[in-house]
């Protein structure tokens, strides 16, 4: 479960969210992605090797150290040590510690809802559409906007 640490910076909105509608496309991790190898995603750590820093004075550092030494199965060398701080170097050609994923060849979930990133003040219910219907609706909508703008 991801935790939002801070909201991204956005340019100030000029007009309220109630004047907007959102066309969204989603590929949820549970249904639209699969695990992938380092090679499949062009992982730099796999290609070049990598280093990690562990602070053995912390509970987390000790658990990381035990996992790497006893369970990870990766080759590594200690390249630096000062007090409880250890730098480990992992040579290239082995799986890194990241869990890579790549999208499945599935139709994304396409939806239309009221509002924008600030919320949906008009409480317009979300509608799911097939990709082709979504594109058609979006295309028609943008055409109308363009026409209205040209009319002034």
């Amino acid at each position, binding site marked *: *479960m*991801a*935790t*939002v*640490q*801070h*909201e*991204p*910076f*956005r*340019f100030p*909105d*000029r*007009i309220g969210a109630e*004047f*907007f*509608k*959102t*066309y*969204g*496309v*989603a*590929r949820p*991790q549970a249904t639209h*992605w699969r695990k992938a190898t380092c090679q499949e*995603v*062009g*992982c*730099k750590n796999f290609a070049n090797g990598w280093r990690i820093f562990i602070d053995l004075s912390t509970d987390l550092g000790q658990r990381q150290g035990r996992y790497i030494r006893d369970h990870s199965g990766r080759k590594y060398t200690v390249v630096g040590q000062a007090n409880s701080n250890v730098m480990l170097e992992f040579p290239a050609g082995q799986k890194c510690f*990241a*869990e*890579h*994923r790549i*999208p499945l*060849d599935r*139709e*994304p979930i*396409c939806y239309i809802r*009221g509002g*924008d*990133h600030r919320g949906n003040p008009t409480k317009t219910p979300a509608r799911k559409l*097939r*990709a*082709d*219907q*979504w*594109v*058609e609706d*979006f*295309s028609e*909508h*943008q*055409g*109308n*906007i*363009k*026409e*209205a*703008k040209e009319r*002034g």
Partner: protein
Amino acid sequence: MAKEAGFPFSVTVDDSAGTARDISNDISNLQFATPRGVQDVTGVNKSALERLLLLADMSVTLNGAAFNDAANLSHAVFKTVPSSSVARTTTLALSGQTLAAELLYSDYALTRGQDGSLTWTAPGVLADGTVPTWT
């Protein structure tokens, strides 16, 4: 439009040098916020200038499934957002149609999840007020 087999879904975004990069495999979801129905817009008691501003508005949010620093992919494209202010052509292709917009991105925000995942968000707005249309 007939339903297609397979899924041509792609997202390309210019890097800061103006080279289009295909970052489709990094995107978990995206949203385009566009002015609501034109009738609703023009019916609102707003000045003509505000109506025009609204008609020129669109905000976009791209969300990444995971931090990816492989060459020419999402991190390479967005890492320059904080240090540059260039309009970037952003193209969504879906179901045989393409929507291209000139966007100014305002952030490239990374989020560390409790499960150790590292995801990102890049919000943007229309750079020049040109209404993007599907072709």
